[in-house]
């Protein structure tokens, strides 16, 4: 019975690994091909099956004047927008979440749970509903087609995630921990940054990771709210697909655009398995 279980377990893991990794391998292989190798017949292994070339990669950094597509600038635009919006969302979201978790708010019929739900409801709405309001809003304040405008919009999109994760996290940190800090001579601000924050690192990392992922992969708002001045990576990658699909540079740009997420996942994985709050919780 347990042998069968072990077999099935490893069978499934192997199957899933192949399922997930195969497209990447294919993309890596394709990124080194040229027009001929892609269109002649199905090939997999460089040098044996086809003659590898770096053309697909070179195109990415060449300027359009020289026949390239230049994803360098959109790349840095994406990094800037994602990181700035994530950072601001985490800072504001963490403060909001702490307040929602620890203090009782009353405004008419509005209670803490209603405020938390208001934040989450921003993500429940389909993004397309928000597109027209955002467009009008940004054009009114003159931030359409600008990095700053994108940062503002992304904060609206990412902060609910931060609030949601952090409220849940703070609710599981015993209130007595804050109280002990107060009794031990911390004022409320010191209690927050000397005791609560250092014990919230796992939560902050999870929230940060989600913000970065959702910010990085957003295509919809980047597509609607920018035209010529500013371009973000996902839009640029999709725009590569013209009358003749350049599979080689499309593969290369797809690989460089998922690379940061893979790196983030590897860094975060260590922290997630290491840090926990068991000492405070029980």
């Amino acid at each position, binding site marked *: 019975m347990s042998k069968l279980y072990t077999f099935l377990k490893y069978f499934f893991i192997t199957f899933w690994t192949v399922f997930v990794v195969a497209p990447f391998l294919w993309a890596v292989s394709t990124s080194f091909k040229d027009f001929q190798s892609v269109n002649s017949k199905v090939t997999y292994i460089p040098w044996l099956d086809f003659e590898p070339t770096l053309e697909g990669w070179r195109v990415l950094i060449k300027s359009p004047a020289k026949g390239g597509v230049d994803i360098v600038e959109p790349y840095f635009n994406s990094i800037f927008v994602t990181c700035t919006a994530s950072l601001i969302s985490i800072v504001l979201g963490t403060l909001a979440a702490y307040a929602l978790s620890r203090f009782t708010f009353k405004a008419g019929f509005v209670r803490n749970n209603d405020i938390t739900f208001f934040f989450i409801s921003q993500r429940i709405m389909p993004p397309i509903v928000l597109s027209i309001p955002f467009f009008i809003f940004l054009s009114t304040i003159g931030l359409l087609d600008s990095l700053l405008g994108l940062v503002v919009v992304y904060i609206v999109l990412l902060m609910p995630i931060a609030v949601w994760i952090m409220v849940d996290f703070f609710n599981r940190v015993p209130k007595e*921990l804050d*109280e002990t800090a107060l*009794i031990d*001579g911390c004022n409320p601000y010191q209690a927050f940054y000397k*005791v609560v924050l250092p014990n919230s690192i796992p939560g902050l990392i999870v929230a940060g990771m989600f913000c970065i992922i959702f910010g990085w992969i957003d295509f919809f708002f980047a597509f609607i709210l920018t035209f010529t001045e500013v371009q973000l990576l996902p839009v640029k990658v999709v725009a590569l697909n013209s009358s003749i699909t350049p599979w080689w540079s499309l593969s290369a740009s797809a690989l460089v655009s998922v690379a940061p997420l893979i790196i983030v996942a590897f860094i975060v994985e260590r922290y997630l398995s290491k840090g*926990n*709050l068991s000492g405070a919780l029980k």
Partner: protein
Amino acid sequence: MNLIGEKISYKPDEQFHLNDVSFNFKKGNLYTILGRTLSGKTTLLKTIAGLLNPDQGSISFEEKDFIKIPVWERNVAMVYQQFINYPHLNVYENITFPLEQRKLSPEQIKKDVDDALKTVGLVGFENRKIQELSGGQQQRVALARSLAKKAKILLLDEPLVNLDYKLREQLREEFKRIFSEGLSQDTILIYSTTDPQEVMELNGEVIVLDEGKVLQKGPAKEIFENPSNLKVAEISNDPPMNVLKGSKNPKNLNFENISLEIPNHFKNLEDKDYNFGIRASEIKLDKNGEEFEIELAEISGSETLLHLKRGNSKIIALIEEVMNFKIHEKVKINFNANKFYAFAEDEKLVSSPYGGTNG
């Protein structure tokens, strides 16, 4: 120079958490607050610590209005029933935390922390992480942090309730030692618990709290011997004191068709209806006794708790040996009338075997 609370009330919702509580705590003394769960013990301690502000009433300490002083400037220490330590710091850093917060000199901090570690028996554990400690050790760290602060008011909120039986016994013994050796004469120690045995062992001044109200104040012995009313008698005994509705007539005591001779301390009682109280430990098995039906028999340690029934009365008897009983079996028991309490119909104490009367 005392810690004085006057007419403190706290009512955050429909119910009073504290209802007109007054106290006068003197330095160098141990006070225990005895009450069931949700009786307001924690609320009272938090109010003294400054984590809660009462709706009414005043607290003063060393002639200063305590309520105007925020928690972090009050210099109190508190140990919670949950084992609360700073999980991101190791044992040593946990204990230094409040001292560094008060900006003491490094030499002073080192000395105070070493003393505290010695007192709670955690020398050698300085670099351990909190998560690596057992529950009892975690609670020792919390206690050490409180002791090292040398706070003038030390609050312990049911510190032993989350520990297993053996550890609780052991730590309780140590608490008695720590309280007598490790504390300065400047300290007011306030200890809350649901366990009457703990109250008796710590042997301090007791405040019995129920539904936010103070039911009785006095030395532990006085509470045990002369509980001022039925509720106190229930709260201050484990198992709770048995109550039998009955009456006294010129010849004997009557309850559930049982007649007992009138004990000496009841001789001067008026002849009327009473609530008689008798401790579970004063009921003995006796072949010539009265017949009761067993509803439940629990063996705990070397004792057996018998839940008995006769007519409308349900009582608990504590038999000091392990015996096997069948449920619904009949047993014969004997009441020691000399240990009977009499409470009036309004539940106030009328006569106790230890000479107390409130009537």
